[in-house]
């Protein structure tokens, strides 16, 4: 059965059960306006929904019922036993039709004409059975109710209501019996509504069980009893399954939030004179209820923004050669234990220069920083507090409380948000959020003898310095410890000092010195947390701290470890605030590093390869996702582009030597060397002749102009080498990286 229909049935039958009680109550207190309003609302809802679903017979019955109820509610009629019986008969009729719908998806062929007449007569204030002539209008309206057969008079003894308004109860009773019989196997009993509090409690208990299981596992690891081991193994499996099932009870499809967007978009686009269509993909992707709640507002804001700022008017679109109707594409999918949500529009895109100008004007970045920023880092400025690009403030968006709130709300639940945009082509916002908040993967570290848990979402990498490097690995900039991580300065925070814990005891002479750094990201800040020991990763159950500890912002909660001891969960953002880390945007810092590299002041890691005879080319290693070797035979063609199937996607290939206007070397064998370049939207394979080396050198680039994708040349390993801007090179080959991979695939297939 249609999901909407079954949902309607479940909801309505709950409403009807309530109605029975309400009516009885109402007879005792005929003047109770609140009760009447309740009843009216319930019938009104059923009427509205069944009209929408096309159940005309049900609609006609509820329609007259509603009319009668509305006169009662407005005080134009007062409740008599006669009216109550008629209304109850209507409720029974509704139930019986719903029973039919559930069984056969049709409304049954019972004739409710007499009931309709009786109700409308009462509505008109007539107590007597209605005259045939008068009833005709009402019936004429309701003719289509005989949906399939047009046979209105069948089965009179079982179902039909007496035409005479007999105040006695036999008829309603009869049909309510029939109704009950149907109810017994009805859908509404296949599901029950459960208090969220109860689910939360279940979730907590399962969390406890998981911990107890972990403890048992630890014991049995040291035990040699086979029977015990087998039982523990089963306990282990059952607990895991139980945990998953209980988690599922809290899951809801993201479609629940999305369902209101078409309306939001419609209203907005109407008021701006725009035409926007909403497309949805992955509506059924499930998320924890608490997360669904938490992303509702940020998503709405993003959608509003997209329509308000992103979309052009139909005229402007046509002038640009785009279809008059814009498209807003919502996409959700699971990936690596996280949920990805993408909101893309094909509107005007974000103008990076305007963003930068605004950021400068607001003092968010300095001139100096601005000069060095990449387009990507500029776009991400829109997430900075106090930023709004809307030139005029509309009543929808552009009050300066925009995207920074969106980002902080998403980060609050452990998510990330990223923006990509191409001027004139559109904007994509990509949100990644965890599936659930209650159980999170975490890294367990030890400092000053205590264990602490660090949520994995904040974790970038682990660095371990040993022996000689440990002694030299930490340098000080006017007292502030830093570590050079691949040529960039990583500010260091000592966990023990930040928390006011004692330093680790000095190591014995013969012991190898070691420093463990956990590289973390919070907001735009990246820093290294120095801990004594890195222990393990574990799934932990997050438990809140008592209210007396709420003021300590360094902790996000606590959890119970496998051995039963309590460990605190570190709040990375709070920790970095406490450590007094300046808000230096990582992106800004990166951009600075790039700028410096271009100016030839900083070491940079480059991938060297050969493309064309005697032609050495270098690209920054950070642009390289992977190096692959493909058999030449697996290349296929899509249109004019060479493609390969790569990790479930179709990846376009670029022969770099052709782009650079060189002849390729004769191929050795059938193997192609491919450098996979990836940005958020997709991957492109660059076919090169030979991978030469990876170097870490100070590079002085002599800028040249006018060659496709080449930034300039530099002397690397004592040979002149061209430095390539991958993005430019791909652009000049005519491949559009901005296209969504899925869309790309579709287009290529078409």
């Amino acid at each position: 059965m249609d999901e909407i229909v079954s949902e309607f049935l479940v909801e309505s039958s709950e409403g009807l059960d309530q109605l029975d009680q309400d009516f009885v109550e109402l007879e005792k207190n005929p003047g109770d306006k609140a009760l009447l309003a309740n009843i009216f609302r319930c019938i009104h809802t059923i009427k509205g929904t069944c009209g929408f679903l096309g159940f005309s017979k049900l609609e006609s019955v509820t329609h007259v019922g509603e009319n009668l109820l509305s006169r009662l509610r407005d005080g134009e009629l007062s409740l008599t036993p006669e009216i109550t019986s008629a209304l109850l008969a209507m409720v029974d009729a509704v139930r019986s039709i719903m029973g039919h719908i559930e069984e056969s998806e049709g409304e049954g062929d019972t004739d409710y004409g007499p009931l309709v007449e009786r109700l409308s007569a009462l509505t008109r204030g007539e107590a007597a059975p209605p005259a045939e002539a008068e009833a005709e209008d009402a019936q004429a309206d309701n003719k289509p109710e005989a949906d399939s057969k047009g046979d209105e008079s069948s089965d009179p003894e079982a179902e039909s209501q007496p035409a005479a308004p007999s105040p006695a109860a036999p008829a309603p009773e009869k049909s309510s019996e029939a109704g009950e019989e149907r109810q017994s196997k009805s859908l509404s009993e296949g599901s029950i509504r459960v208090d969220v509090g109860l689910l939360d409690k279940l979730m907590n208990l399962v969390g406890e069980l998981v911990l107890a299981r972990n403890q048992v596992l630890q014991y049995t690891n040291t035990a040699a009893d086979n029977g015990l081991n087998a039982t523990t193994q089963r306990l282990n499996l059952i607990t895991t399954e139980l945990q998953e099932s209980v988690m599922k009870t809290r899951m809801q499809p993201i479609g629940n939030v999305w369902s209101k967007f078409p309306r939001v978009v419609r209203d907005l686009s109407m008021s701006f004179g725009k035409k926007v269509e909403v497309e949805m993909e992955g509506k059924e992707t499930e998320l924890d209820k608490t997360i669904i709640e938490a992303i509702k507002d940020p998503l709405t804001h993003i959608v509003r923004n997209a329509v308000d700022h992103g979309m052009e008017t139909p005229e402007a679109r046509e002038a640009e050669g785009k279809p008059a109707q814009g498209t807003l594409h919502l996409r959700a999918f699971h990936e690596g234990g996280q949920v990805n949500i993408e909101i893309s529009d094909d509107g005007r895109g974000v103008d990076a220069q305007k963003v930068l100008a605004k950021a400068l004007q607001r003092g968010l970045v300095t001139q100096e920083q601005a000069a060095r920023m990449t387009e990507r880092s500029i776009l991400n400025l829109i997430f900075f507090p106090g930023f709004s690009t809307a030139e005029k403030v509309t009543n929808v968006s552009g009050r300066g409380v925009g995207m920074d709130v969106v980002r902080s709300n998403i980060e609050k639940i452990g998510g990330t948000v990223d923006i990509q945009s191409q001027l004139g082509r559109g904007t994509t916002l990509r949100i990644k959020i965890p599936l659930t908040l209650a159980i999170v993967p975490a890294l367990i570290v030890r400092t000053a003898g205590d264990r602490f848990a660090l949520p994995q979402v904040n974790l970038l990498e682990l660095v371990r310095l040993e022996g000689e490097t440990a002694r030299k690995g930490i340098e000080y900039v006017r007292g502030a410890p830093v570590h050079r991580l691949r040529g960039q300065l990583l500010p260091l925070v000592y966990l023990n000092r930040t928390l006011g814990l004692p330093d680790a005891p000095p190591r014995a002479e013969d012991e190898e010195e070691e420093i463990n750094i956990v590289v973390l990201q919070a907001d735009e800040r990246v820093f290294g947390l120095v801990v004594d020991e890195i222990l393990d990763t574990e799934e932990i159950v997050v438990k809140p701290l008592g209210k007396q500890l709420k003021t300590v912002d360094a902790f996000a909660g606590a959890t119970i470890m496998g051995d039963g001891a309590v460990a605190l969960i570190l709040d990375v953002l709070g920790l970095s605030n406490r450590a007094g880390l300046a808000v230096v945007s990582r992106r800004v810092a990166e951009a600075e590093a790039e700028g410096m590299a271009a100016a030839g002041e900083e070491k940079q890691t480059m991938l060297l390869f050969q493309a064309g005879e005697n032609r050495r080319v270098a690209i920054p290693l950070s642009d390289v996702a992977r190096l692959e070797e493909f058999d030449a035979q697996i290349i296929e063609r899509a249109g004019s582009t060479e493609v390969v199937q790569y990790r479930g996607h179709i990846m376009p290939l670029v022969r770099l030597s052709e782009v650079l206007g060189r002849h390729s070397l004769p191929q050795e064998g059938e193997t192609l060397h491919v450098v996979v370049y990836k940005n958020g939207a997709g991957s492109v394979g660059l076919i090169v002749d030979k991978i030469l080396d990876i170097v870490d050198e100070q590079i002085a680039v002599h800028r040249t102009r006018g060659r496709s994708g080449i930034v300039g040349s530099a002397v690397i390993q004592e040979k002149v080498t061209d430095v390539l801007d991958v993005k430019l090179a791909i652009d000049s080959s005519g491949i559009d990286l901005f296209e969504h991979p899925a869309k790309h695939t579709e287009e290529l297939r078409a």
Partner: protein
Amino acid sequence: MTDTSQQYCTFYVDGVHFGIEVLQVQEVLRYQDMTQVPLAPSEIQGLINLRGQIVTAFDLRTRLAMPDREDGRRPMNVVIRAEDGAVSLLVDEIGDVIETRGDDFEPPPATLDEATRSLLQGVYKMDGRLLLILDCDKTLALIDDGSAVS
């Protein structure tokens, strides 16, 4: 007034006899291992795992501005039901459950030091000694501004 008799769970802190309404007490436990909470107000000794529930442990000696417990002496836990879950009070020794009569009750004497007096509901005059009744809510309400070590 005689039927306003109350039962109190009593305990000793630095030799002083204290009581808490028995209905507020969830359970009494011997010493439990605790995880210290860095940066927390000094009254908070640590976190206890009480059958999977995380319970904050308050040291009454610190709260009442009394000298620290002698080395090697382990506190007992009086777990009380607070608004947002259980909280444990660390005390030196557990006493009896004592039934009192309403007419023996008096407000805390004015001579009492401020730290103690502000946390008391009142005092019961018992044979040969006094029982100080703690106000749980006030005891647990830490001053938000100063006490959190920054």
